[in-house]
């Protein structure tokens, strides 16, 4: 009997590998189970590939060609050309990198701030907690975008990382509140108390009992922080408040705006391309955020 149970409960390396692959498979299956989420996921992947790998294959067109101003889409120019006869497609390919970089970095920093401050506030409690909540409440009533615009008036926001840092710091309050509420409810769960009784240690409690159960929250917060970072960044560029150094979609809209392309009937592809790129990226992130919720929430996995 004992012999039997050993072989019954022993797991070989191949089995572990199989389980691992199965895990990835079920992750993809879950993403796929939500149609809108899958679409968002594919679109986000597309934008990432486009902006990271794309520039290697599509050179940025910088030559002015007077004969080719506002040419409609063709084989040669899939999205037509701009007011200087340059290829729009190549600008789209090259214009996403900065935006994604800032969005990703902002998401990372602000999620980190939110998770650390929110968890600390919920775990320490007492005076620290009430101070932090009051601060967050006040912070939330300050209109963020005007503050950002005023800030841009004071400092030159020409470093992408600095911009990301500022955007992340500005958005701490919302994330803080969400994470704090989550940790507050999670730390009162019976299984956390059981872990305390079993003396499993703070690290186990935080990283194994609490965090995995708020992954969906964190993931959604992350995508949310990314969308607001994209919004803030492109609007600042559009208003000309952030020094224009490289080409990105915001710069394209801004140029189209200042060159009056908006008021020209021929320039529809020029103005619509960056607009659609930004709008689709935002949509994709929001959709993906919803499906991530399903992936991390095991109660929704019941069927699988």
């Amino acid at each position: 009997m004992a012999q039997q149970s050993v072989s019954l409960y022993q797991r070989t390396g191949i089995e572990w590998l199989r389980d691992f692959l199965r895990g990835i498979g079920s992750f993809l299956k879950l993403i796929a189970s939500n149609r809108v989420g899958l679409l968002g996921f594919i679109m986000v992947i597309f934008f990432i590939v486009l902006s990271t790998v794309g520039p290697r294959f599509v050179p940025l067109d910088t030559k002015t060609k007077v004969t080719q101003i506002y040419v409609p889409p063709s084989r040669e120019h899939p999205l037509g050309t701009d007011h200087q006869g340059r290829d729009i497609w190549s600008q789209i390919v090259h214009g996403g990198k900065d935006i994604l970089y800032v969005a990703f970095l902002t998401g990372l920093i602000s999620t980190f701030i939110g998770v650390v401050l929110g968890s600390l506030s919920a775990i320490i409690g007492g005076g620290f907690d009430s101070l932090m909540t009051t601060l967050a409440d006040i912070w939330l009533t300050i209109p963020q975008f005007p503050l950002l615009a005023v800030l841009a008036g004071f400092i030159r926001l020409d470093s992408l990382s600095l911009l990301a840092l500022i955007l992340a710091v500005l958005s701490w309050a919302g994330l803080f509140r969400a994470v704090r509420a989550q940790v507050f409810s999670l730390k009162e769960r019976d299984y956390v108390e059981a872990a305390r009784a079993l003396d499993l240690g703070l690290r186990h409690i935080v990283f194994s009992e609490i965090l995995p159960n708020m992954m969906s929250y964190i993931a959604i917060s992350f995508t949310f922080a990314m969308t607001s970072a994209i919004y803030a960044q492109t609007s600042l560029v559009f208003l000309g408040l952030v020094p224009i150094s490289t080409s990105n979609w915001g710069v394209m809209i801004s140029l189209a705006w200042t060159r009056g392309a908006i008021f020209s009937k021929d320039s529809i592809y020029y103005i619509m391309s960056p607009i659609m790129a930004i709008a689709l990226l935002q949509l994709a992130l929001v959709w993906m955020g919803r499906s991530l919720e399903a992936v991390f929430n095991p109660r929704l996995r019941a069927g699988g």
Partner: protein
Amino acid sequence: MGVPSALRSPKSASVGTARLIRRIVSNYLLRRLLKALFTVFFVTTLIFFLIRLMPSNPIEVYINELIVQYGFSYEDARNQAASLFAIDLDAPMAVQYLDFLRHLSRGDLGNSLRSPGTTVLSVIAKFLPWTLFSVGTGLLLSFTLGVSLGMLMAYKRESSLEPVLAGIGSFLSSVPNYIIGILLLVFLGVRWELVPIGQMRGSMTPGIKPSLTLEFISDIFFHAALPIATYVLTTVGGWMLTMKSSTISTLGEDYVTVARARGLPETRITTAYVGRNAALPLFTQLAISIGFIVGGSILIEQIFVYQGIGYQLLVAISNRDYPVMQGIFLIITASVIASNFLADFLYSRLDPRVRIVGRE
């Protein structure tokens, strides 16, 4: 028979100071008012120190500018700066700060650097009403529309209408507001030529006299139409989706089931039982929403060349007109806080649980 404490009539006793403080702390509206005042104070302080402590101190920048561009002596430049910023530059920081607060409490926000002789207050007085008008109308419209559509979606959540509305709602709430503004301009104004965008610029037709005539009112609505449309389009999606989920969860509440069991007419259930309770959480969301929509006015007024406070802020920023920037930012924050307070007030009228909290 015992009576719970909440039902006992309040003891008629002398009201001591301690009791007064407890009253204030336990009164929802007073608590909110104190918080609002504190937030205004917090923001002004933030702005003051931001200006003074920035790596490139805008006051120093301005003094330099006066010296280099206009050949002022350092002393003259300094005096000019001090008078425009309404700050005594020689005093220690703490005194400057108190001075600043004193000026502020008198409503003195300093003078514009770029158009000498113009007070910041007059700039605000001239442009703020237009923003309040367009943003307020937009918010009201989108709230009403969003709440109605949200309830409709919740009630018809198994029809084919719901996914369509949900799709539109999620599209509108995820696409940035300036993009919607540009799209309106490009398609309605340029491609399809449905609206005369040339004539719609500004906040009213030059020469028309402000009065309570139909002509004037329709004129200001004509000029504000596109900004208002943009505000509505960018925020209505959020209200729709929030109201939908709030309504769905309210529909699952026991008291709605009980109301049905009691045989109440469906209209009564929809309004007094579902609608009123489902809308409550939306009032707490107004805070973030108002801030967002007012902040968005900077972009929207720029796109439609609407002469409001957001447009003026951008002008001030690009001119580096610091006192105006500071003043406008303060007033924007103050109006957001004031509207939040208003939302809180409405909320406390609608939810008796908030009102009574102090009596427990």
